[in-house]
């Protein structure tokens, strides 16, 4: 993924096209979430994450399709494997499986990633090993109590090798987050609990790449990436229903033409 092993340069457009193609082929939803994190993953896996020493955890497991597409583009899995997405006897289910190359932890139940990441980060510190831990989570995951157990723990223990990226698209399964549990002020909250809170445009790969370089000595990094669910496909953007729906033929064609 870095240092000459990169199979090819990651492109947000390519990843988005693959997301639409695979969800159409498999007739599976969660497209909105996958499009929401596409640019974040492209930024992370274009050199930020060093697979030799770093660990990436997709805490919002339901966006795994986006990660599979990145893995295929990087050559870590083949495109033939990608074509098994959501088929029978596949390693590529809706949620990621650690038996697949490039996946560290199986996720899918929300709110586990920050704790897993804090555990990895603490173990690295104990062992004196280098490397950063990146956890990508959804904003709705902040509803889970265990997230706050992890936030308090990582802040207290000054795990500055841990970065949590919040996919802040303002939507959850049934409604906008503001209508379910209002999360305004979360940046100040984590700051109070010992984290460094930053904000970035979650669809600007260059801005994300620069933002990920930030380190705050003694403070874990909480990167609020402002995103749009369904980003890149106008009729999917900010539409709660695209958390679940698959695309039909007409929507498929329109989506691809918009992505370019």
């Amino acid at each position, binding site marked *: 993924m870095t240092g000459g092993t990169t199979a090819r340069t990651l492109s947000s457009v390519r990843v988005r096209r693959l997301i639409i193609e695979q969800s159409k082929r498999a007739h599976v939803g969660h497209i909105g979430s996958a499009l929401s994190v596409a640019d974040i993953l492209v930024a992370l896996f274009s050199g930020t994450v060093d697979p030799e020493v770093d660990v990436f955890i997709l805490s919002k497991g339901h966006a795994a399709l986006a990660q599979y597409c990145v893995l295929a583009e990087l050559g870590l899995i083949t495109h033939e494997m990608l074509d098994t997405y959501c088929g029978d006897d596949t390693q590529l289910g809706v949620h990621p499986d*650690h038996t697949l190359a490039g996946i*560290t*932890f*199986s*996720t*899918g*139940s929300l709110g*586990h990633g920050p*704790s*897993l*990441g*804090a*555990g*990895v*980060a*603490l*173990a*690295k510190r*104990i*062992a004196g*090993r280098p490397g950063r831990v990146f956890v990508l989570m959804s904003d709705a995951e902040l509803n889970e*109590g*265990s997230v706050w*157990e*992890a936030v*308090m*723990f990582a802040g*207290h*223990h000054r795990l500055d090798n841990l970065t949590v990226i919040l996919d802040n698209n303002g939507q959850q399964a049934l409604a906008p987050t503001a209508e379910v549990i209002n999360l305004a002020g979360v940046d100040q909250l984590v700051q109070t609990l010992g984290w460094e809170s930053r904000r970035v445009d979650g669809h600007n790969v260059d801005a994300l790449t620069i933002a990920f370089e930030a380190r705050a000595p003694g403070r874990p990094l909480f990167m609020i990436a402002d995103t749009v669910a369904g980003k890149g496909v106008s009729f999917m953007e900010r539409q709660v229903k695209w958390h679940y729906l698959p695309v039909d033929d007409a929507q498929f064609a329109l989506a691809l033409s918009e992505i370019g």
Partner: protein
Amino acid sequence: MRKQFVSTLIDIANHDDRVVLLTADLGFMVLEPFAEHHPDRFFNVGVAEANMMSLAAGMAHEGLIPFCYSIATFASMRGYEQFRNGAVLHQLPVRIVGIGGGFAYGTAGPTHHALEDIALMRVQPGVGIVAPADDGQVDRALRDHYARPQPMYLRLAKETASHPELAGRFHWGRLEVIGDGDIAIVAIGSMTGVALEVRRRLQAEGIQTAVAVAASIAPAPTDDLVALLASKSACITIEDHRPIGGLGSLVAETIAGHGLGVRLIRSGVTDPVGETTGSEAFLRRRNGLDVDGLMAAVRRVALVPA
């Protein structure tokens, strides 16, 4: 058993720097020696069992062997899904250390009585479950098996115990059998003391029993159980746990699965929800889990052949 656990773990940690001890803010007057010996490998994670389970999975993924300490109820249940999706799903060497199985926390009341913990752990694939009968078994089980690759649940009694008949024997997936007779008493954990006392008293009456200590619940001591029960007229299991899902169920499954003809009596906690609380001795007595209760159960099967 708690103190033996800590003492043995300190010794193991002296030789193996992969060992770390996490506690969810419990272990006053118990864990301090470990914290003093290995301050860099002791973490009070706060009152946050769910976080503790996932932290441990993350740490185990990085090559450490984390022990997660709390009262058995909280240790086994509060972070159950984190344990399932973390250590179990990834088959990582996380060790849950549940203190005070059964009624050990007596008057603390039902929130502190671990009566389903073994059942919960038995249904998870690939989890080793160890419920030692005394300090000697704690020491042996830890020394011989702490580094196994799969997750483990250790169910420990609070108080110290020693049964010379066991002489510290513990074998993974085996029973430790003491004596012989037409009737088998299969005991778990601190019920072993009750079973051995009943065996002594019945011996004085001319009734011979075999006491089998099931400290290795998973992997189940299936072969030993089949060998033991093939020649017995009756088997009585005794556990400070609900009869469903624990030792009694394990023995029933073995008997049914192997077509054994032995009669089975399962002694366990049958209190309805909402009963009054009290001391461990009182609660055991009320559920027939004391010497008198077990004596009565054995006499019933001894006097009324199947």
